[in-house]
Every structure is written in C-alpha cells, then in structure tokens.
C-alpha cells in the first residue's frame, strides 16, 4: 500500500516490479483460468486484490516495471513476450484448457491470432479494469459493454497529478531559482519573489488545475485548456499583486507568459490520458509549442521593456 502511494508520487516507480512468471493465486488446478498482467507491482497488486478468494493462475509478463497500457504501446506487453512466458512456464502442462484472459488495454501490443498460432492458447480480452474480473468470471466469461467502457473521471485524473508534480519539481525549482538569482543581481529581490510566485502559480495551473478541470475547460487541445487555466491564474495573480500599480506592459507580459507555462504543463498531461491520439498530440504540438514559445518570448521582451520605464 505504501509502495503504491510512493509510486503515485514518483518515488522509485521505475523500480516497482515483481519477477515475471507464473503465479498461483489461491489453490488453482488444471481447469482454473489464466489471467495475464504486467510486472509493474501496482498492476500486479490490483489484479491480485480483485481476485482475492479465487483460484487463478496469474501469468506475469516482463514489462520492466511498466504498466499494461504503456507497455502495450511500447510492445513489451506484447505477442513475443506473451509467447515466451507461456512457453517458459510450460503453461500447456499446467492447465488443461487453452484460454488466456488479457486486459483489453493490453491489445495494442498483442496479436491474438499470432499467439494462438504460436502457443495453441486463445486470447480473450476480458475487461478494461481488473475489478471487473470477478463479474467476468462469474457470468461465463462474457465481456459486457460496461466492462468495455474506458473512463477518465475526476478521481482517475486526480491520482495522476502527484507523479506529474514530482516530475516537474526539479526543472521548476531550477527556473524559480534563476529568477530569484537574477532579481538579486539586478538589485530588486522583491520583484524576483513576485515573478517566482507568478511562475509557480502558472505551473500549478497547468499541472493541477488543468487535469482536474479537464472536461470543463474549453477546446479539445490540452494545451488550450492549460492556456485557459493559465489565463485565469493571470487574472487572479494581477488582482493579488495589486492591480492598479502594475503598468500595462507588465500586465501584458503576465498574460502572455503565464498561460504559455500552464499550456506546456497541460500538454504533458496527454501522456497520462487514455483519450489523446498520436496524430492529435502531434498536431497539437506543432501548433502549440511555437505559439507557447512565441508568447513567452514576447512576454519577456515586454517585461524587459517595462524595466526601462
């Protein structure tokens, strides 16, 4: 449990794995089902927990500690590895049936007909979530529309935020440090603190607010949603930092730079989402990255100009 919490916060998540191979849950016999999963410990634990009290053979594939979905995309939760594991564990001698139960999200890496050809085992894509496995097993192994439904609700988005925060921590701290240093050198450390706060707020708008408010922010592009969150923060920041005393160049700079920062972080959230397509993200990046870069640059130029007045 602690391990899972730590992994959600990015601590040791690249090493959170179990050895691949055939595991026995309960006391399975030759006629009991075979469920296949990845060797990312979080995946493994979720499947085990879902199947508590049942007798199941659990075939764990070597995905180098990566979860099913990402490993399938990379090919490690794949045909080759599945065939290898079935063979090396001598599964055909352990069970009398010829059926493998796979997660639907493993399908991007596994070719069912190839597996059948090479091992004699038929692949059934049981469900999206491991939690549905008991119902699947009890209803005669039929995948219902509900079991096929992929969600990305508030809670599911929420749990992905800590790892994104921790991942961004280093670069954000460095950039923040640079602002403080520069402002100290230029003799106005208070301004540096203000810039830091503005910057941190923009980061949080992109890393936290963007994902949480995802369905309610406008547009299909994550970068755009992030920019809107950034704009909202810019408005808030200007209010908090003393609206009237800011000159218009600085205000313009704020409204250009901060949304650019938020947009960048929100764009990164596409990696956590099971809804964005490769072509869509490519298109988004081709447009969004130059726009962000331009906005940031222009904003910084304005800031520089403002310091001369």
């Amino acid at each position, binding site marked *: 449990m602690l391990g899972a919490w730590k992994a959600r916060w990015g601590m040791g998540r*690249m090493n959170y794995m179990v050895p691949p191979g055939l595991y026995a849950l309960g006391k399975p016999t030759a006629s009991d089902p075979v469920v296949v999963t990845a060797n990312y410990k979080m995946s493994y634990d979720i499947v085990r927990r879902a199947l508590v009290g049942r007798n199941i053979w659990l075939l764990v594939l070597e995905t180098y500690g*990566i979860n099913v979905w*990402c490993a*399938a*995309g*990379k090919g490690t939760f794949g045909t080759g590895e599945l065939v290898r594991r079935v063979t090396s564990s001598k599964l055909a001698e352990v069970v009398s049936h010829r059926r493998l139960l796979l997660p*639907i*999200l493993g*399908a*991007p*890496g*596994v*070719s*069912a*007909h190839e597996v059948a050809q090479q091992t004699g085992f038929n692949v059934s*894509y049981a469900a*999206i979530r491991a939690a549905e496995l008991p119902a699947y097993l009890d209803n005669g192994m039929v*995948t219902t529309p509900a079991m*096929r439904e*992929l969600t990305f609700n508030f809670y599911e988005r929420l749990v992905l935020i800590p790892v994104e925060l921790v991942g961004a921590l280093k670069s954000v701290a460095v950039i923040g440090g640079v602002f403080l240093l520069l402002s100290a050198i230029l003799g106005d450390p208070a301004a540096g603190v203000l810039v830091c706060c503005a910057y941190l707020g923009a980061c949080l708008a992109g890393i936290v607010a963007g994902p949480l408010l995802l369905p309610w922010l406008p547009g*299909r*592009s994550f970068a755009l949603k992030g920019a809107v969150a950034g704009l909202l923060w810019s408005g808030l920041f200007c209010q908090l930092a003393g609206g009237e005393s800011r000159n218009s160049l600085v205000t313009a700079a704020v409204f250009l730079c901060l949304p650019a920062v938020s947009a960048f972080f929100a*764009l*990164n959230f*596409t*990696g*956590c989402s*099971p*809804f*964005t*397509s*490769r*072509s*869509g*993200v*490519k*298109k*988004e*990046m081709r447009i969004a990255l130059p726009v962000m870069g331009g906005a940031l640059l222009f904003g910084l130029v304005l800031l520089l100009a403002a310091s001369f007045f």
Partner: protein
Amino acid sequence: MKDVATLKLDQAVCIGCGRCLEVCPHQVFSLAEKKASIRDRDACMECGACALNCPVKAIAVDAGVGCAEGLINEWLQERKLLKPGGGNCCS
C-alpha cells in the same frame, strides 16, 4: 481532436470476426452483416489494437507512443540530440 485519426478500414478484406470491437477502448467500430465499419472515427486514439488483432490485416493506423513527452523524445532522437532508450519510460 476532430479529423486527425489515421485509421483506415478495408471492408472488402474484412471477414466480420469482431476482434476490432473486442479490443477497441473507445467503441470506434460496429459490426453488421459480417462486416465491420467505423462508427466514430474521432474517438480513435490510434492505440493500434485493432490493426494488430485483425487476422486479415484489414485495418491500418499510425500507432505508437502518443504522449507529448514521448513525441519530444522521438523528435530529439531523430535529430541525434538524445540517445535512444535514454530518459525514462516514454523513450
């Protein structure tokens, strides 16, 4: 996003096995009279599961890592600015 998916289905080759419906996380396909068809192309996230699991290769799609970080890593590797396999999970 609208209209960006590279998904293509060759109905002439399709044998109506239904695997594409089984593996698609977004119900992009439908099956009628032993032929599959694309019912919601914009929902496609190009994961590639359908193309990989079609026994007659009736489906084609430009699949691969689809996260911004992964694409940036790919772009950097193409321009030899980053070693392949460097970085973390999305490389």
